[in-house]
C-alpha cells in the first residue's frame, strides 16, 4: 500500500513517468485522476489583489530602500568571540539615553492629532467649521480659502475621539462634509458628518501641499474662541440654574457657556431649566452632560423649538445611560475619563436607532477584543446599516470582525469594501461569503 502511495505522489511530482502506464491499468487509476483534477483546480486558481494595491504600496514606501536599525546592527555584530564588546557599548549607550531623558525631559507630544477638513464652495463668502469639538458654536473655526479650485480648508488638532461636524456656509447654511468618515442623521431631518480621530502615531498627510501657515490652525488647547457670560436680563434666574448644574458636578465654564447660548437663542430661564432638568436629577450627570450639551448646542444652531430641544436632550441622555448600563452588563465597562470612545460609539448607535438587543448580541459575542476594536465594529455596523445592509448579514459580519480580531484599520477596510459592493448592487450573501474567505 505504502509503495503504491509513494508511486502516486512521485507521478504527481513528475518523477518516474515510466510508472504511469502501470498505475493507469491498476485500481489506483481513478485515485490518480482525482488527485490530478484537484491539483489542477488549485494550480489554475488565481486571486486578484485589490485594484488600488500598487498605488497603496507605492504611497506607503519610504523614499529610499533603507535597512532598519536592527538589520544594520547585524552587519556590525562581530563573530562569536567578541560579542561582549558591542553588547557592553549598547548597554552603556542605553544608560546615557535613559539618564538624558530623565534629566532633560522635554514635553513634546500633546496627544493632539492634526486633521484637515475641506469643502468645495467656490462662490461662498465665508465657511466655518462647527461641531461637537467646538460645542457647535460658530466663530471659532474659520476655513481658509477659496483656493483656485474653489476649496476651503482648515487644519485642526484634536484629541482622539468621535466627533460630529458640519460646515456653516455664509453664516447661515449648514452643509455636511461628503468626504467625512460617514454621514449620520442629526435628528432634525439633516445629516452631520462623522470624524473619527484615532490615537497612536499620527499619519497626517497634507492633502494640498499648503505650507502650514496657510491653514487656519486651531487646536483645542488654544485659548480663545468665543467666550460667553450669563445675560444681564433675568440674571438671578440664570445664576440659580448655573448653581444647580455645578452642584451636580458639571463644569462651571461649560454650564455658563451653554446657558448664555440658550439665552442668546431666545430661550427663557424656565424653558432652560425644563430642558436641563433631567441632568439635575442624576448623580452621574457630569459624565454625560458634555454630550447632552453638544446636542442642545447643535439644536440651537439649527434653530430648534424649545420643546424639540428638550426631546433631543432627553434622547441623547437616555442613549448614554443605556449605553453605560449595556457596557457594564456585557463586561466592557471602561474608565470613562480615559477611554470614552466605546461608550460614545455605543450611545450614538443607540440614539441613531440601533436596537439594544443587537448591540447586546455583538458586545456579548466579543472575547478578548479591545475597546477600540469594539468601537470600530459598532461604528462600522452603523455605517453599513445606513448603507442598507440586511440586519442578519450585518450582525454576522460584525461578529466575524471581532472573532478574527481585526484592528480598526482593517475594520474600516471591511466597511469600505462592503459599502462599495452594496453600491454595485452585489447580493448581500455573496458579500458575506467574500468577507469570510
Amino acid at each position, binding site marked *: 500500500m505504502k509503495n503504491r502511495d509513494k508511486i502516486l*505522489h512521485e507521478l*504527481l511530482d513528475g518523477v518516474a513517468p515510466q510508472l504511469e502506464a502501470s498505475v493507469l491499468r491498476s485500481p489506483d487509476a481513478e485515485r490518480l485522476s*482525482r*488527485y490530478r483534477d*484537484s*491539483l489542477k*483546480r*488549485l*494550480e489554475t*486558481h*488565481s*486571486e*486578484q*489583489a*485589490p485594484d488600488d*494595491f*500598487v498605488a*497603496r*504600496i*507605492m504611497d*506607503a*514606501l*519610504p*523614499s*529610499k*530602500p*533603507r*535597512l*532598519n536599525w536592527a*538589520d544594520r546592527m547585524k552587519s556590525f555584530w562581530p563573530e562569536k568571540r567578541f560579542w561582549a564588546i558591542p553588547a557592553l557599548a549598547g548597554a552603556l549607550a542605553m544608560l546615557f539615553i535613559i539618564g538624558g531623558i530623565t534629566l532633560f525631559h522635554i514635553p513634546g507630544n500633546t496627544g493632539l492629532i492634526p486633521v484637515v477638513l475641506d469643502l468645495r464652495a467656490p462662490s461662498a463668502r465665508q465657511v466655518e467649521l462647527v461641531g461637537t469639538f467646538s460645542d457647535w458654536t460658530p466663530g471659532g473655526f474659520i476655513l481658509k480659502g477659496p483656493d483656485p479650485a474653489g476649496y476651503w480648508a482648515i487644519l485642526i488638532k484634536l484629541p482622539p475621539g468621535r466627533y460630529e461636524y458640519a460646515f456653516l456656509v455664509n453664516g447661515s447654511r449648514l452643509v455636511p462634509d461628503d468626504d467625512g468618515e460617514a454621514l449620520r442623521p442629526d435628528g432634525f431631518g439633516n445629516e452631520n458628518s462623522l470624524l473619527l480621530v484615532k490615537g497612536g502615531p499620527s499619519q497626517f498627510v497634507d492633502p494640498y501641499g499648503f505650507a502650514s501657515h496657510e491653514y487656519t490652525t486651531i487646536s483645542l488647547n488654544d485659548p480663545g474662541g468665543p467666550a460667553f457670560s450669563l445675560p444681564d436680563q433675568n440674571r438671578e434666574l440664570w445664576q440659580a440654574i448655573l448653581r444647580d448644574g455645578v452642584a451636580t458636578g458639571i463644569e462651571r465654564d461649560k454650564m455658563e457657556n451653554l446657558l448664555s447660548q440658550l439665552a442668546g437663542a431666545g430661550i427663557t430661564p424656565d424653558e432652560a431649566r425644563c430642558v436641563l432638568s433631567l441632568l439635575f436629577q442624576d448623580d452621574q450627570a457630569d459624565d454625560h452632560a458634555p454630550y447632552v450639551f453638544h446636542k442642545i448646542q447643535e439644536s440651537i444652531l439649527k434653530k430648534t423649538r424649545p420643546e424639540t430641544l428638550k426631546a433631543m436632550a432627553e434622547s441623547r441622555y437616555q442613549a448614554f445611560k443605556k449605553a453605560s448600563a449595556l457596557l457594564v452588563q456585557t463586561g466592557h465597562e471602561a474608565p470613562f475619563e480615559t477611554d470614552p470612545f466605546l461608550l460614545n460609539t455605543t450611545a450614538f448607535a443607540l440614539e441613531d436607532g440601533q436596537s439594544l438587543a443587537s448591540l447586546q448580541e455583538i458586545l456579548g459575542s466579543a*472575547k*478578548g477584543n479591545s475597546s477600540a476594536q469594539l468601537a470600530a465594529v459598532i461604528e462600522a455596523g452603523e455605517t453599513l446599516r445606513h448603507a442598507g445592509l440586511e440586519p442578519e448579514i450585518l450582525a*454576522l459580519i460584525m*461578529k*466575524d470582525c471581532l*472573532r*478574527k*480580531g*481585526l484592528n480598526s484599520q*482593517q475594520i474600516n*477596510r*471591511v466597511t469600505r*469594501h462592503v459599502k462599495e459592493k452594496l453600491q454595485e448592487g452585489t447580493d448581500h*450573501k*455573496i458579500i*458575506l*461569503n*467574500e*468577507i*469570510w*474567505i
Partner: protein
Amino acid sequence: MHPTDAVLIEKCMNGQKDAYAEIVERYQHRIYFMSLTRMRDRFAAEDLAQETFIQAYRKLASYDPQRSFRNWLFTICANLGKNRLRSRSRRREVHNPNPEIIPALIQSPEHCRLDLMVALHKIPEKLRVPLFLKHVEGFSYNEISSMMKIGTSAAKMRVKRGRDLLVLHLSENHNHSGRG
C-alpha cells in the same frame, strides 16, 4: 521587452522608486494569493501582502542579486506570515472559520472559487503553505525547504499530506453541495 527583476532592482537601488511599482505590479496577485493562503482572511491577507512588498523594499540593500528575487520575496512573505499567525494564535483559535457563516451560493464559478478556498483553508497551515508553494508557484522541494526552514524530506511529506487533505476536503464539499 520587459526588464528583468535584476534590472528593476538595480534601478530602485539607484533611486528610481518608480521601478518598484513594476515589481509590485508583476508579483502583486501571486503574493496576495500566497497571503490569502496563509491568513484565511482577505483583509489580513491584504495587510500581509502589503507588508511583504514594503519590507522587501526596505531590505533591498541586503538582497543578493545572485539569488532569485521571486524566492526571496516569497521567503519574506512566508516569514512575515508565520510571525503574524504566531501573534494571532496567542489571542484566539484561528483554525475554524466562523461556524455561523456557511457559503450559501448555488453552483457557479464564484461557488467553485469559494469551494476551493474553503477546502484549502481546512488544511492545517503548515501543510497548506508548502502545498501552495509547490503546486501554485512551482517551487522545488529544495527551495521550499530553504524558504520554510525545514528539511527536504519534511517539505516532501508536507506537500504529500497537503495533497491528500485537499482531495479529501474537495470531495467532502462536493458531496455536501450535491446533497444540498
